[in-house]
């Protein structure tokens, strides 16, 4: 347990010369401030009262536990190291509070607490000072529990009074449960209940509504409200026994409580009946037999219909992305050229749609299956593997070269395949759909990663439906054109412009290749990027040598053989550089410009120091992330505010697979980037900013709003 000494503790250590060398009387954690205190108004003289105590000041809503902590929790323990002959007694526990948590009940303390312990000094104790050492362990809980401990040191004068905390000790004394002379308490097991009967209570307490807290752990149902009644001077309370009772005491010390009384009354109830066996042959509780059917962990989120609608629109927009537009536009232009019969066109459109939708669903199913198998993945996972990035770069290079007219597929493909294409136009259209998804996938991740990431957290059937809708949206323009030839006829007449348009479309393809090479460079470093570029050159050479329409058969054979050999050599040379994973510090988002690498520990540490934390969850392949990084996060106002407010800036780079980041994203309810999280001191949890980040939003979140 890491403890953070407060400024106060440092100041104390600086003034208290002796204890400064060994430790301090104060331990401060983000949840409590704990201090070892003493009360010896007449000095440490044998026979005179002397007390030590641990004072615990809880931060609001945090609590520690009583000797019987209730359904969960643990009592605070104190282990003393005292000079020979000096002894410390048990903790004199103040009357605790009932602390309900859901269906459970705890007994403990909030706010300021003193746990006093009486000490005895032997006759003839020599020395001017008495050194006290304490090791304390406590469990502090709010909605989470944190086990903490502390080492405390205190030096007390023997011959002088120590009374700086007199009021605190007086308050603790006033809050300790009072023993009642002449009171008689009995406890009896009656069926499933424990019945407590108490007589001889003080007159002032008679007739009042009382509660009770057992000091014995694990006997009654702590959360149950006892049925209580007064009959003349006898108070009776009936409370259900814990079906999982873990103790069978002969005497049960009880603390009776009354609203408005700081201190309870302590009575020791004698148990007058034998305890039933822990497994009593009682009738089965009604609930016990009932078949409980638990709903699937996540019921239909209200946003499902909306998610489907967004996916449909997103799919439509996908057609305009630089990686998809060239391929698709040419496909649609095909209508203008062929003018084939309507039925064949419609069949082709449907086949294409099927290819697109099924490919998206298959991709999503692979992702969901991997996640169910425990893989820490999110949408965009395809691009986290260098090999996938390299293959996509090669694919785009080939398509670009084809569009630029460097080679024709017709001269590359075996004639049997070309024949099959003519015989099975429907299959051809289906495969075009598959290709379209392969080409589109690097664009879905950067532009729609976050929203598709959210879909993954839905139940599988719904998630797949969202991806199917995405595919449908993407296929819709082509499907529409195939179903209504009027649309196709609206296209300009075929002509030489189509050849120019086709060549023009090669350039967005090459631009996509540049981006993919950069992503690969971030993943595996400059050597990997160069290896990929070399590979692409060899590939282009092969494409030209084998597929150029202007080469004769002889030249094709010669160049082709050389080109293929070159490609094989390039593969052998490039493969190690591409496989080489995660060169240390190789990511673009590493510590730079005041940003530090993210870790949960770093966040927790900064929070404990009371600093505001801004976390940027990003990836090189995420275009939105890069856009925000280069605009909003690089804005002078934002940089100045970060410096002014001493905001700790952390960057979590998800370019490569990172289970810790995936886990954190899931905790935020996301499974894609970008995510921007701001932790401010005092706030319960982080605040997530929007994916398209604005300067005002960042300034507002870190408390530097204009």
């Amino acid at each position, binding site marked *: 347990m890491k403890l953070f000494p407060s400024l106060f503790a440092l100041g104390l250590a600086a003034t208290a010369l002796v204890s400064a060398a060994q430790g301090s009387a104060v331990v401060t954690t983000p949840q409590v401030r704990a201090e070892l205190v003493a009360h010896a108004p007449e000095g440490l003289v044998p026979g005179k009262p002397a007390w030590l105590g641990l004072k615990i000041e809880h931060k609001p809503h945090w609590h520690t536990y009583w000797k019987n902590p209730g359904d969960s929790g643990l009592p605070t323990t104190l282990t003393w190291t005292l000079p020979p002959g000096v002894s410390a007694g048990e903790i004199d526990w103040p009357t605790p509070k009932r602390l309900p948590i859901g269906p459970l009940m705890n007994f403990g303390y909030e706010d300021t607490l003193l746990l006093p312990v009486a000490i005895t000094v032997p006759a003839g104790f020599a020395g001017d000072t008495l050194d006290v050492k304490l090791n304390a362990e406590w469990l502090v809980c709010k*909605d989470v529990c944190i086990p903490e401990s502390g080492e405390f040191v205190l030096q007390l004068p023997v011959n002088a009074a120590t009374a700086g905390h007199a009021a605190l000790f007086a308050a603790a004394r006033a809050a300790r449960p009072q023993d009642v002379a002449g009171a008689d308490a009995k406890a009896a097991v009656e069926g499933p209940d424990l019945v407590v009967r108490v007589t001889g209570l003080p007159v002032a307490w008679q007739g009042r509504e009382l509660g009770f807290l057992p000091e014995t752990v694990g006997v009654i149902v702590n959360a149950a409200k006892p049925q209580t009644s007064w009959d003349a001077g006898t108070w009776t309370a009936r409370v259900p026994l814990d079906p999982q009772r873990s103790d069978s005491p002969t005497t049960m010390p009880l603390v009776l409580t009354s609203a408005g009384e700081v201190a309870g009354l302590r009575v020791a109830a004698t148990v007058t009946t034998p305890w039933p066996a822990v497994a009593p042959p009682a009738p089965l*509780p009604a609930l016990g037999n009932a078949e409980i059917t638990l709903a699937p962990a996540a019921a239909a989120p209200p946003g499902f219909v909306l998610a489907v609608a967004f996916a449909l629109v997103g799919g439509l927009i996908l057609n305009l992305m630089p990686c998809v537009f060239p391929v698709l536009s040419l496909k649609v232009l095909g209508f203008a050229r062929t003018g084939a019969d309507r039925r064949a066109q419609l069949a082709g459109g449907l086949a294409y749609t099927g290819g697109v939708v099924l490919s998206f669903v298959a991709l999503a199913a692979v992702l969901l299956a991997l996640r169910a198998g425990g893989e820490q993945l999110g949408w965009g996972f395809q691009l986290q593997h260098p090999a996938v990035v390299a293959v996509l770069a090669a694919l785009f290079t080939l398509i670009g070269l084809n569009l630029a007219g460097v080679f024709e597929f017709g001269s590359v493909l075996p004639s049997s395949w070309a024949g099959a294409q003519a015989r099975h136009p429907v299959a051809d259209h289906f495969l075009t759909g598959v290709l379209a998804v392969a080409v589109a996938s690097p664009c879905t991740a950067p532009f729609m990663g976050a929203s598709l990431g959210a879909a993954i957290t839905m139940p599988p059937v719904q998630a797949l439906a969202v991806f199917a809708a995405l595919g449908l949206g993407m296929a819709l323009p082509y499907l529409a054109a195939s179903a209504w030839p009027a649309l196709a006829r609206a296209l300009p007449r075929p002509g030489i412009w189509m050849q120019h348009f086709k060549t023009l479309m090669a350039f967005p393809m090459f631009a996509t290749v540049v981006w993919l090479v950069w992503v690969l460079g971030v993943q595996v470093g400059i050597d990997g990027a160069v290896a990929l570029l070399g590979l692409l050159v060899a590939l282009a050479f092969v494409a030209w040598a084998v597929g150029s329409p202007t080469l004769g058969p002889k030249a094709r054979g010669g160049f082709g053989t050389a080109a293929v050999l070159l490609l094989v050599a390039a593969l052998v040379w490039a493969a190690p550089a591409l496989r080489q994973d995660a060169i240390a510090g190789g990511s673009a988002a590493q510590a730079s410009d005041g940003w530090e690498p993210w870790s949960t520990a770093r966040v927790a540490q900064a929070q404990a120091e009371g600093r505001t934390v801004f976390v940027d969850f990003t990836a090189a392949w995420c275009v939105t992330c890069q856009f925000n990084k280069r605009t909003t996060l690089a804005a002078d106002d934002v940089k100045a505010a970060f410096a002014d407010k001493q905001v700790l800036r952390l960057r979590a780079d998800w370019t490569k697979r990172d289970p810790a980041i995936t886990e954190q994203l899931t905790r935020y309810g996301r499974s894609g980037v970008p995510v921007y999280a701001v932790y401010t001191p005092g706030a319960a949890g982080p605040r997530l900013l929007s994916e398209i980040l604005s300067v005002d939003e960042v300034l507002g979140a870190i408390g530097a709003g204009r």
Partner: protein
Amino acid sequence: MQMLARTLVATTLALAATAALANATVGQPAPAFTATDAAGKTVSLADFKGKHVVLEWVNPGCPYVVKHYSSGNMQGTQREATAKGVVWLSVNSTATDSRDYRAPADMAGWMQQQKAAATATLMDADGKLGRAFGARTTPHMYVIDPAGKLVYAGAIDNKPSSNPADTATATNHVKVALAELLAGKPVSTPVTRPYGCSVKYSSM
């Protein structure tokens, strides 16, 4: 005043919820249940008739759960049990509105990361299963015999600390109970007091 109102509401909710908690009784048939595991599969207690079944309440956000996983104690107990044909079901009853909540895939990922050897991880975000068994803490352990009778309820071991090193010297109640059961003997300590964090039930 607002504080008082909030306290009253919380108390009332707690009392209302109490009725649904802690009805499973050692020596009696365990409550039948059907739940969904982290992979979305349906799991019923009835599926395991004829086998010993261990239920383990788990919450990766709880330091006491972390104690038993970081020390390897829980995984070791799981492996030893499942190797003997015992069915081990880890149950996460953390409510969706709790800070500790994990989505099913996330939970499955955590279990895999811990190299846990549980037969299945059940997602119980609405707390029905937890309330039926009266699970209070994480960890909280239950053993059901092949006839479907609840034969152990309580702690994983006898050292209620957060120190992982203590697992080496503690008496593991679940190992003892399973050894006794597999030897045809009754469980010598059928109930102990569980220790750990409260189960983060939904307040519904």
